[in-house]
């Protein structure tokens, strides 16, 4: 773990997060019908949210092509990485297309997409117009800080919620079709203690995340393994598949910053 240098961490984070962007563009391409006709994201449905609409007509006609270009550029970034020749241009192009797709859609975004945008903007700053060690350090620190903030905020918000403290939140979330699972719900309905333990485990893990990563090396590894398992669980039982790429994707930056701060000056 101590061999994690900033460049390696930055490179790995970009590739992992862009894997999620690739998945998102292919998923949106597969439901492109929702962006036209009587779909949820049809022009007429999103129009009330647009203040200026100069490109919407053009975008409407070529939206499936734009999603395909987004997928191709994402794949290229995943394969060659941000440090290869032209990697910085590809990152900038990908950022532009992601912003365009998000702007066109207006609704339907989630936390994973927000984290991906944060990583892409920070990465573009770090490698454009040229690669800079100082700017990579700043970008890695920024990404790691946003990662830690995300867990801490989620933890505190759950801690102040009576539904989470009572231990019913996970059971009730899993009872829904949108973010639930029939099998998991039936277990938790049968054994409410499991739901209670689950709620408090999530609260404690998220609240203590920024402290635990600065503990001994075994605690750092354990925290990240628990985090990864948590996101796998959320993907399997709640359908939050994009979070599996965006959040564990920033772990390399977190590890790099932790070791950087631990090195005696």
């Amino acid at each position, binding site marked *: 773990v101590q061999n994690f240098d900033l460049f390696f961490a930055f490179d790995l984070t970009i590739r992992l997060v862009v894997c999620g962007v690739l998945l998102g563009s292919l998923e949106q391409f597969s439901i492109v019908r929702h962006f036209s006709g009587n779909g949820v994201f049809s022009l007429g449905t999103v129009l009330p949210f647009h203040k200026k609409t100069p490109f919407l007509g053009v975008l409407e006609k070529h939206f499936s092509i734009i999603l395909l270009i987004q997928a191709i550029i994402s794949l290229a970034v995943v394969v060659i990485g941000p440090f290869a020749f032209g990697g910085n241009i590809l990152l900038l192009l990908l950022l532009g297309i992601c912003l365009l797709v*998000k702007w066109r*859609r207006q609704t339907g975004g989630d936390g994973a997409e927000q984290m991906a945008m944060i990583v892409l903007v920070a990465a573009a700053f770090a490698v454009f117009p040229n690669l*800079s060690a100082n700017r990579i350090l700043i970008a890695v620190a920024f990404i790691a800080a946003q990662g830690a903030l995300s867990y801490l905020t989620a933890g505190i918000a759950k801690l102040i919620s009576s539904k*989470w403290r009572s231990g019913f939140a996970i059971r009730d979330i899993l*009872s829904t079709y949108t973010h639930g699972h029939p099998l998991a719900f039936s277990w938790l309905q049968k054994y409410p203690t499991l739901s209670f333990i689950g709620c408090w485990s999530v609260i404690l893990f998220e609240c203590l995340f920024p402290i635990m990563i600065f503990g001994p090396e075994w605690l750092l590894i354990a925290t990240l393994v628990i985090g990864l398992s948590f996101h796998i669980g959320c993907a399997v039982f709640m359908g939050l*598949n994009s979070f599996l790429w965006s959040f564990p994707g920033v772990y390399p930056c977190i590890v790099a910053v932790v070791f950087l701060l631990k090195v005696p000056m």
Partner: protein
Amino acid sequence: MDFALRNVAFEDTWTVIVALVLSTWFLASILHQFRFKWWRYVTRFDVSNLLPAWSFFAPNPGCHDLHLVYRDWFGESAGQWQQFYINSKLGWRWIWNPSRYPSKGLIDLIQSLFYNIKAFSDHPKSVLLSQSYISLLYFVMQQPQVKGTTHRQFAIVANQSFNKCSSLIVKYLSEKHRAEL
């Protein structure tokens, strides 16, 4: 030599700008989590939604499915309620879940409508002019119509789909709107 010096000066300046932008963004992200009332004046400028909201499923976890349903009116008689379905394959959602986009899109519109209902509680009719209401109404009106439909109405209902004991709760009932074929 002069060119090299200028390059170094540009590099240093750009690095300072990047450091300032990213540290301001991070501080703004921290403030954004507190949802202060005055902060709304700042978020108005966040057109690309780059300020993250990290309080996933809290403090109010989404414990109900929100369904958009609509019915046609034929003069004075009402037709059956119909639901707009977004199917997702539960077994594959962990790796491939395209339905999360339209599903979340509809939930965002519905949540925005609920926010407006609360915000305009003194003038309930004002909700009809809100972006989310117009958007949902347009979406509902675009769904296939049968011959003879004069008006269409939509509603938001909530339940816990996997909980057999859960009952359907009507959260919102819209006005009747003239249907144009």
